[in-house]
């Protein structure tokens, strides 16, 4: 069985470490905040100017002046801070944020990522994604393994305009977990019941399968 969104988020949460400052992108990455292991201290950064972002407010307590980068109403945790956009991206480009999790349209086996533009179709803009991928030490891309037409999103070379080059370190899809290595996508774990052959068939980029690949514990 392929992983659902919650299971993908839970798997990514296992990459968190105590003391990490983490930036989560819009969509499935946002869910990672729900699965921080108990007792672990992780501080979430939102690039519109928050460190120490908390959960959504209780109904009736929404504050129009307190939103996250997805423009959703949020809260602040004790010890949080607020800053301007320039300071926020100083944290990001200056590599003070240890982990970035974001969605992707395509990832290439050399770590290139495309996730901001479909020429002629989607002209929304890159937001903070280019700054985030250009700088973070550790970038995890969280996405479906194939697009709606069933075509692989793990490619030899991205076909869409790039967001960043040779920057992605790890990819978590609904089918498995992959490290980006000089030899391509190194399959670390399979989703429960998903075979190596199925993953191979759905991966257009170079795939490295090193011995027995364990099934993920979800």
């Amino acid at each position, binding site marked *: 069985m392929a992983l659902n969104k919650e299971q993908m988020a839970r798997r990514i949460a296992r990459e968190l470490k105590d003391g990490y400052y983490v930036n989560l992108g819009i969509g499935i990455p946002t869910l990672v905040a729900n699965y921080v292991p108990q007792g672990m201290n992780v501080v979430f950064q*939102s*690039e*519109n*100017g*928050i460190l120490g972002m908390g*959960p*959504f*407010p*209780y*109904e009736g*307590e*929404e*504050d*129009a*002046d*307190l*939103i*996250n*980068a*997805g*423009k*959703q*109403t*949020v809260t*602040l945790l004790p010890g949080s801070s*607020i*800053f*301007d*956009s*320039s300071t*926020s*991206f100083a944290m*990001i*480009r200056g590599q003070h944020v240890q982990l970035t999790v974001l969605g992707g349209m395509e990832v290439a086996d050399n770590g*290139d990522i495309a996730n901001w533009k479909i020429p002629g179709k989607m*002209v*929304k*803009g*890159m*937001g*903070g*994604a*280019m*700054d985030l991928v*250009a*700088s973070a030490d550790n970038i995890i891309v969280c996405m479906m393994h194939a697009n709606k037409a069933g075509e692989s999103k793990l490619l030899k070379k991205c076909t869409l*305009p*790039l*967001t*960043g*080059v*040779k920057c992605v370190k790890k990819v978590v899809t609904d089918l498995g977990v992959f490290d980006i290595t000089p030899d391509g996508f190194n399959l670390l774990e399979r989703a429960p019941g998903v075979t190596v052959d199925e993953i191979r068939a759905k991966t257009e980029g170079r795939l490295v399968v090193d011995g027995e690949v364990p099934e993920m514990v979800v």
Partner: protein
Amino acid sequence: MNKIVANADAALEGIQDNMTLMVGGFGLCGIPEKSIAALVRKGVKGLTCISNNAGVDDFGLGLLLQTRQIRRMISSYVGENAEFERQLLSGELEVELVPQGTLAERCRAGGAGIPAFFTPAGYGTEVAEGKETREFDGKMYVLENWLRADFALVKAWKGDRFGNLVYKRTARNFNPMMAMAGKITVAEVEEIVEPGELDPDEIHTPGIFVNRIFRGEGYEKRIEQRTVRSRA
């Protein structure tokens, strides 16, 4: 010293067709609602607007798109506005999409007298096309130029007649950098206080960057994505 003006219309005195404006805010959070409404009333056209976003169809900068007053936008994300997309695809509107951190820093640089800087964002992408690139300590960077504006329109929470400003929560966002980068900076605030009431240690934008300040009444502060959790 007294930078207080009566209202938004007085604050925008001197804005003409084809000028470049910076407009603070992130999404609809921290936008200068009253100055935008005054721009619609004023009817100036051919504007270049530097703003992280383009509002939504019927609020924020979307109001100036409806009236076709904007010719060019410099933004990082414009995904919430269908009219924007329509004007862009039809060629009525020009847009320069800029990585968000680069946009913030270009404004800051404009206000700080730094004509250009190197950033890693966008290296190897179409954002870097035609721009100088250089290697520093084994990594590649792209040269980006400052941004400056004829007018910067910002929104703060409190201010005084010296132009000192304090922002509230994430309504701060791009406002402080834009306040620095306007030839004329107009600040609208929810509350004007007496000089001395704002703790000097806690002022976000020192008054030197602000030319005109006025109090706006009845802020709408529209929420784009109202997300809540249930009380367990």
